[in-house]
């Protein structure tokens, strides 16, 4: 009699101790919250995307013509069009959002590309300005990042970003510690080598993918 009772209790406990049964509330909540969050994302996602595009358009003159020229109202008269670009490299299709900027008279001012890649904490989203022939970097701007405050997030500072201005896109850029000496070197943010490497990697990959097609597009426009 006693033994039987023990058995049923154990069976009951066995069911109750099952991980899934124990965690049912967590699972149900995760589902409910998941649905709530995807609704929020569906509603607000487009608004956030528009904000980013507006910010990009605002930054285009500064990225192409330098910070001082960017302040000049006349230079802000750049015509900006978004060109979706697909690059096929070793069988993999990659799409880029390229902003084409033209002066009022129709000559090409340069290109700004929005790209993202994995940083140390989360994805880093950045804008890369290139001159019309895509041979030179004209500017860099960090749109979105969640790097470590005080260390990795220094990648947004002008002082660090300015290193990229006027770098040639011939070869790839390299990150060095303790002061860049060569032309293709970028000084890393101290204490944030991974964040620095991520930014440089993103830029190198983008340049490698887009240099050719952009140069071709620029030549076509000239003809």
């Amino acid at each position, binding site marked *: 009699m006693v033994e039987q009772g023990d058995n049923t209790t154990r069976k009951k406990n066995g069911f109750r101790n099952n991980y899934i049964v*124990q*965690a049912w*509330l*967590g699972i149900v*909540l*995760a589902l409910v*919250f998941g649905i*709530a*969050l995807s609704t*929020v*994302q569906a509603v*607000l996602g487009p*608004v*956030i995307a528009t*904000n980013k595009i507006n*910010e990009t358009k605002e930054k285009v003159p500064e990225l192409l013509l330098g910070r001082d020229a960017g302040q000049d109202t006349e230079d802000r008269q750049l015509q900006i069009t978004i060109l979706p670009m697909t690059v096929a490299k070793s069988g993999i299709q990659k799409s880029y959002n390229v902003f084409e900027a033209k002066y009022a008279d129709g000559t090409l001012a340069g290109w700004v590309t929005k790209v993202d890649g994995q940083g140390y*904490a989360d994805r880093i989203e950045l804008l890369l300005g290139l001159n019309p022939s895509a041979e030179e970097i004209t500017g860099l701007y960090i749109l*979105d*990042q*969640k*790097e470590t*405050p*005080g260390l990795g*997030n220094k990648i947004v500072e002008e002082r660090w970003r300015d290193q990229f201005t006027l770098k040639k896109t011939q070869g790839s850029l390299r990150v060095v510690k303790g002061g860049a000496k060569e032309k293709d070197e970028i000084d890393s943010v101290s204490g944030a080598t991974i964040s620095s490497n991520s930014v440089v990697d993103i830029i190198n990959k983008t340049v490698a993918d887009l240099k050719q097609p952009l140069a071709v597009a620029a030549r076509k426009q000239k003809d």
Partner: protein
Amino acid sequence: MAEQPTALERFVQGILPENPVYRQLIGLCPILAITNSMQAAVTMAVAVTFVLVCANAVISLIRPLLKPHLRIVIFTLTIATFVTIADRVLAAYLYQMSKTLGPYIPLIIVNCLIICRCEVCASKQPVFTAVSDAVGQSIGYGLALASIACVREVLGTGMFFGMRVMPAAWPDWSVMVLPPGGFIVFGLLLGTANWISNRR
């Protein structure tokens, strides 16, 4: 079990007697990081209020279902959801502010103030008490944020809510808007608060 405080007691306690920053010394990371301007401090306080009220309400509603050894998981899940909503709303409607606050909005998830209120109050008391506790604590937190931000912004930039209040001759103490200023101001204000309460 000892008698639990009533809703009104919870509300009042959060503002001054048990102020999260000056009395409990919790949730200090944003206190030091984003108090260099009033606008950032107020936005942060509103975001914390939203998260705290929602998390406390939800936890209080499901408190009979909580299992002691799994409660922290549920708390974190709930808090993370509301923080993400707050983060997305800021990015959509206050884009520049969301860039200024950067990672500190997502970091509300690990703000111990919120998990502390879920543990101390919401998981034990009914919804009304939990919400008034959340509002009281949020007011206390907001006041603390504002008190530090006020000193730092005025001394550091000569401005208050972005408007010039100090005479033009005032040399802006830029150390005040830098991280050391956060520690210095917080330390001095905390000392003053302790001095006042000891005198009474």
